[in-house]
């Protein structure tokens, strides 16, 4: 493996959304293309609904499983609050691809209920804060796209597709597809590929004016 361009990304979301599958698809995409890859993952408890993150490092020479603060090229958040929760890892003007669907934690809901308030943290609140760090933000309505692909459980394939639009990503679009194929059940492959393509297109449309994207 000769010197490769590096790309560090924080994958995040809420337990049960399939972040590990996302990471496995990316890891396999790199493995197939002979690109260096390592991850640092946190999945100690198996409860759903907690915060989950995986640091994924492609190419480059770093050997630490965790990305230093302010050095990630991108954050990919299957739940938007979680992109802000790990914002310290993103470099200035890094890329954020995030789901539009906010999942409010039970504690926030209970607190608001007690105080008779309804001011949930909204998608707009989150994006406003993210913009302090970067203008390069691509919101994705992953559930709608997954439904369009024919399977609401293909949200993570939407994100794998979305990431593929980034020109700086070491694995090619084709590598990414192979990575996805390695991790999804065969019977759901067609829907996952559809979801992948929809995700790709949405990210391309949202980001191509801001950062370098590549053709499918």
């Amino acid at each position, binding site marked *: 493996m000769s010197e490769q361009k590096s790309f560090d990304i924080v994958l995040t979301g809420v337990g049960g959304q399939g972040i590990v599958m996302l990471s496995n698809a990316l*890891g396999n995409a790199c493995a197939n293309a002979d690109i260096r*890859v390592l*991850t640092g993952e946190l999945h100690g408890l198996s*409860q759903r609904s*907690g915060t989950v993150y995986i640091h994924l490092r492609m190419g480059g020479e770093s050997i630490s499983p965790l990305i230093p603060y302010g050095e990630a090229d991108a954050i990919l958040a299957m739940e938007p609050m979680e992109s*802000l929760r790990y914002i310290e890892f993103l470099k200035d003007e890094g890329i954020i691809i995030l789901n539009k669907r906010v999942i409010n*934690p039970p504690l926030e809901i209970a607190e608001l209920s007690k105080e008779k308030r309804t001011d949930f943290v909204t998608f707009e609140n989150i994006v406003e804060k993210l913009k302090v760090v970067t203008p390069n933000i691509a919101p994705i309505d992953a559930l709608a796209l997954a439904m369009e692909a024919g399977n609401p459980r293909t949200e993570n394939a939407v994100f794998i597709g979305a990431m593929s639009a980034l020109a700086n990503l070491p694995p090619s679009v084709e590598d990414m597809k192979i990575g996805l194929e390695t991790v999804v059940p065969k019977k759901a492959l067609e829907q996952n590929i559809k979801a992948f393509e929809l995700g790709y297109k949405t990210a391309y449309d949202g980001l191509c004016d801001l950062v370098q994207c590549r053709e499918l």
Partner: protein
Amino acid sequence: MTLDSVINTEPGKGFVMCNEAMVRGAIEADVKVVSFYPGAPTSEILDTFNSAQKYFDYKFSVATNEKVALETVAGASMGGFRALTAMKSVGLNVASDAFFSLGYTGIKGGLVLVVADDPHCHSSQSEEDGRLFGPNAYIPMLEPSNPAESREMVKAAFEISEKYGTIVLIRTTTRVNHQSGIITTGPIERKPFEKSQWAEVGKPYFTVGEIARQNKLNLLKKVKAMGEDFESSTFNIVTPGEGDVGIVASGVSYCYAVDACKKLGIKPHILKLGTTYPLPRKKIIEFLKPLKIVTAVEELSPYLEHNLKTIAKDTGLELTVFGKDSGHFSEAEEYNVPIVYKGIASALELKTTKDYESVLERAAGLKSILPERIPVFCAGCPHRATFWALKQAIRGRKIVFNNDIGCYSMAFFPPLNFSDSMLAMGASLGVSAGMSQVLKDDIICMVGDSTFFHAALPGLVNAVYHDRNITLFVLDNEVTAMTGQQTHPGTPQDRGMPQGKKKIIIEDVCKGIGVENITILDSYDVKNNVKPIKEALDHKGPSVVISRRSCALHGDRIKRRNKIPIVPNEVDKNACKKPHTCIRDFHCPAITFDTDDRASHIKSDICDGCGVCAKICPFGVIHPVGSESKTEEVEK
């Protein structure tokens, strides 16, 4: 990963987690017996061996606890077979009695024990340093930094084990276990499994008194020989640098140190230690000789640092050793590149260009709007229901609640904030026994089904024997839920999972021990559970309340497999009087409220249809999707 990278008999490349890489290494080394009790961050070793067992002839079992697991693989080793177990550091505390003796008796077939520390206490009670087990028990120890080394070291550990007739430790930390990367696998060539005969393989395994004293002398000789051997181990790597400054590191700290030095623009000489007990003394002396300053980079205790100091002093080297004693690094917390960057920079008085603190500061300001997302009971979790009934039952009572290790530990955190103590697996029984002698309150303790078998039984026997006035809750959800729903002796036999051959019935065990007051509840029957819980608390002497319902994640998986539909609930929005009982007292991730009219709302994609919220709704306006609510019936 895909399981294929672990089971493919041909050599190749694969993207795997360190836990999986260790399994691959063991299968390549022809391991024949493996046994575990699950515990983060090692559970995936168990899970991967479980998934792969249909492809190979090794014997796999989930043991009742780590001590039994270690003894199981020790027995297999005495019978001449290669065997492996893995556990978290607190698990080795449980197994340590057998562990120390095994050092003295020695073993026969290669025997490997993976022990994982958990700096930062991601999922453990303490930041214990498992490295101290090595020198304390005179057991050799290897420390991998990444998946490739994890695989290689497990293979090498079997060789070392058989060469010296000793159990071998592989010591990891959370950031090693849960690190994925690409490994190159070797071929899998396994001899068919065939039982041996004791007369051919056996020898005495005994250690007490004079025999133990002799064993110890032999052990010291072994350690000396291994130390010599490790001088040439390829796991200890010197990367030459510039000048007279060096770094010594192992495990994941080595990775942080290498990256941090690059960022600092320095090229110190680096010694990466893979055999951290016994240490390769001569190799270390060779490394230290030309240096004026050496910095030890290691998480937790100053184990390497103190060894370096001793070696330098004994050898008469004029060397400054920086590390924790010098105040540049902490014995607390998990490291990362920024921490190591700062530590090395301050030790070597280097100018820094990276301002990680200001990045953190800005981030803290930005995310101050975020509500916490701490782990809560899953939608459909029976524990939520049990706690609801328990909290109703203790109204007006003075109680102490001693919690234990499992998903129910989370009761300590918001929103429940309900627990007075939690020490260790099964400890709630002993603690309760002590409290019952000195406190006037009702004493409640709680264990899960898996913890019941793991470490609660001696505590229960003790409570019955001494007639302690305590109430034990056993939350029986069929599996070891917190670590990934592994089986245990109480798991029903019809769940389609590979498991032991006989279900042990918890109430029968309690009866057999002599518990006279046993109450069995359906966790979901929340309102009807309050009275029997009160009665159990009123009972003088030990009482047991078994609250039974399958773990929601496990139960839903079984339902999906058997094609049983999971029907979520919904709120009759027009009838909802918005008391938010389902939200405030319940904290189910599936329940929220609409911002337009504040009516409760159930998210159908998360709800698992347990229906407990419907039972506690004071107006009965929650019902399964597709059915009609009571209020609608009234209107009709």
